[in-house]
């Protein structure tokens, strides 16, 4: 097929029968896809369900699709492979050295911007909220990255550990601490619970990790998905323990015992500044920033330890790994446990930021979003994850803004719904065109004589 097209291009003529056949096929399939579901919309009126037909939209979309396809046929697909493309490869090293020079500066720059953000934003509520939101997902994705990106174990139930952390804080601070130690402990609950939440989540990581040790790839992914759903269903149904779907209202965090309130014993009074509600959000922002940085540095250090190298070896080829004497059991368990621990920290933070936890926050789609961030960042790349999180979470906010354009869209279309559609599409496109993420270079941490950056595209992962 490809060679036919190339020869047609050389002759300077288009293979019209083939193009028309292809266009007709495209039209047929896209009509099948669109006719019932796009062309007819069911609308609930006062008395009954009625169908509203939307053929105009169908034909507009169809015309667009065919136009694009015709354009591709005429100008892109029939072009003979250009000699320039073949020569493009050797130009790689020059580009690599440029990114090598910039590379080390990217992360410090990001951290500096992150630390300055509340000041840059002029202590406005919205940008700080957005920053908290994005950083939470950066941290979650860094945690999941340990399991998926480094150890190569696809975990679809990561949100379960997030839930464990959140509920650990909620239950300890509202039920158990007042019961065990009295109300005096509650202002400190966040600081005491944070490590406990991490440990509990890590424990659950090991509990999940043990049975799935012998599973790999797809089966492992499905089991973790089932595990995540079980945790959520138990949270919904175990009413006595978790208060079920109604959720739990949790106390706010304090600044080392100083509550953020207007009174004399509050944070503002202690530091002699005027009380402002924004203080609390700035405080939360720095807490999540520090937690995220902790995740980053711990992961980075771990990568240089034998355990981190074992993770990456496991990702590349499990059988080779085992034959080299690496204990795959411990390797997998530590990956699960440490990944889960950071999920637990993030969950604890999430509970205090929301002031409320309910099982609704821990649905599968959350796991999918975190996974999408890791995938878009390029499995294993920590900097990539930051940009992916900003892109995805930022675009979510952008879609929210889009509701301004509501009147230009077809009636009854809510732009907010398009955001998950975009995330799903992004995952598919990413796997198809840049399966290694946008930052595709792999920096080896051990090297013989010189450090060579290998393009991720050149590394083929083992099928073990």
């Amino acid at each position: 097929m490809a060679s036919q097209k190339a020869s047609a291009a050389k002759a300077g003529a288009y293979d019209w029968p083939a193009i028309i056949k292809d266009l007709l096929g495209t039209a047929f399939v896209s009509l099948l896809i669109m006719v019932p579901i796009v062309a007819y919309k069911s609308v609930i009126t006062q008395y009954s369900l009625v169908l509203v037909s939307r053929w105009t939209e169908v034909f507009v979309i169809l015309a667009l699709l065919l136009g694009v396809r015709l354009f591709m046929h005429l100008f892109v697909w029939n072009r003979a492979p250009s000699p320039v493309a073949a020569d493009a490869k050797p130009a790689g090293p020059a580009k690599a050295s440029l990114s090598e020079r910039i590379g080390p500066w990217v992360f410090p720059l990001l951290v500096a911007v992150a630390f300055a953000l509340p000041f840059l934003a002029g202590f406005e509520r919205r940008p700080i909220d957005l920053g908290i939101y994005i950083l939470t997902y950066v941290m979650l994705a860094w945690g999941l990255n340990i399991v998926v990106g480094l150890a190569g174990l696809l975990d679809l139930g990561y949100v379960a550990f997030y839930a464990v952390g959140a509920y650990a804080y909620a239950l300890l601070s509202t039920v158990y601490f007042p019961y065990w130690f009295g109300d005096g402990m509650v202002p400190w609950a966040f600081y005491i619970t944070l490590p406990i939440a991490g440990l509990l989540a890590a424990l659950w990581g090991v509990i999940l990790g043990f049975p799935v040790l012998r599973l790999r790839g797809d089966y492992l992914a499905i089991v973790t998905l089932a595990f995540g759903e079980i945790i959520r269903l138990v949270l919904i149904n175990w009413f006595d323990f978790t208060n079920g779907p109604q959720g739990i209202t949790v106390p706010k965090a304090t600044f080392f015992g100083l509550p953020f309130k207007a009174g004399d014993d509050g944070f503002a009074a202690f530091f002699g500044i005027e009380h402002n509600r924004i203080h609390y959000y700035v405080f939360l922002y720095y807490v999540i920033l520090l937690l995220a940085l902790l995740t980053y540095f711990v992961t980075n250090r771990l990568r240089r330890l034998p355990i981190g190298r074992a993770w990456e070896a496991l990702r590349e080829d499990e059988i080779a790994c085992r034959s080299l004497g690496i204990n795959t059991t411990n390797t997998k368990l530590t990956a699960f446990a440490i990944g889960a621990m950071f999920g637990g920290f993030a969950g604890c933070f999430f509970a205090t930021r929301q002031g409320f936890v309910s099982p609704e926050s821990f649905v599968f789609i959350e796991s999918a979003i975190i996974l999408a961030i890791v995938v878009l960042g390029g499995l294993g790349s920590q900097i990539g994850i930051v940009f992916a999180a900003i892109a995805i979470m930022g675009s979510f906010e952008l879609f929210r803004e889009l509701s301004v354009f509501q009147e230009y869209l077809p009636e009854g279309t809510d732009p907010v719904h398009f955001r998950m559609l975009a995330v799903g599409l992004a995952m598919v496109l990413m796997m198809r065109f840049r399966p290694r993420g946008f930052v595709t270079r792999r920096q080896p941490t051990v090297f013989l004589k010189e450090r060579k950056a290998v393009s991720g595209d050149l590394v083929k992962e083992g099928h073990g």
Partner: protein
Amino acid sequence: MEYFLQQLINGITLGSIYGLIAIGYTMVYGIIGMINFAHGDVFMVGSVAAFLVVLGIGLTGGSGILMILLALVLVAAVAMVVAAAYNWTIERLAYKPLRGSFRLAPLISAIGMSIVLQEFVRVNQEGRPKPVQPIVTGGYEIMRRATEAGEFIVRLTNMQILIIVSTLILMAVFTILIQKTSLGRAQRACEQDQKMAALLGIDVDRTISITFIMGAALAAFAGLMFFLYYGVTDFFVGFLAGIKAFTAAVLGGIGSLPGAMLGGLVIGLIETMWSAYFTVEYKDVAAFTVLIIVLIFMPQGLLGKPEVEKV
């Protein structure tokens, strides 16, 4: 006893639906070794398409039996063709370019596609559940006995008969298709050795596409039945049904067609019996637990062949 009989009937009905979906998982896994995570959502597309056609032709329970049956055949045909078009397109766009990519790529792509399908339907049809008045009504009394609590009647509804009988017919047609036709032979050949099959003149890409189309058609039929049985459908029904059907496929032995049907029945029965004798709230937990136990302790399933790991 009567209570058990009733649950048995309900369980078999539910199991038939799961079995039909499970076949799509098992065939795709058999032939290209990937979990089509979006298969549950193809089932959902089939059920929403069926709903739209039912609403479009104004089918209600009031029409004559013959009319209803004819109309249902039409609805089923439309839903199956539409779902087949979806699955074919998904395979073309999201899976085919990834053959030979790294191990997790197709699964991640499939998860993305699953989200795309759900949100696509939600954007186009709104998120609210779509209810419809019962269309196939009536039924038979099988057993009746007076108990202390009153009279207990075991019922077999016409809807249940329709589901079980049509599943049997579809399964028979499908088995003949796989066992006796050249298409089925090509599929079995590709399942065993794609390279060899290609050398012997089988168009492997085409065979894989047809596998996706067949799986989608069966799932769409299950979607229609699901929607008629429960009287409601929405954009999210594919998630749970998909996972349960996948459990069924693994339980039966992934890659094995009779296994998928058997697994479907077992999962349907477990779910029904669990709701009947234990707690309704935890029925999904039961299904998920079965999934985990099966995957961990008997990944080859009831009728499957143990997988040998090759370097």
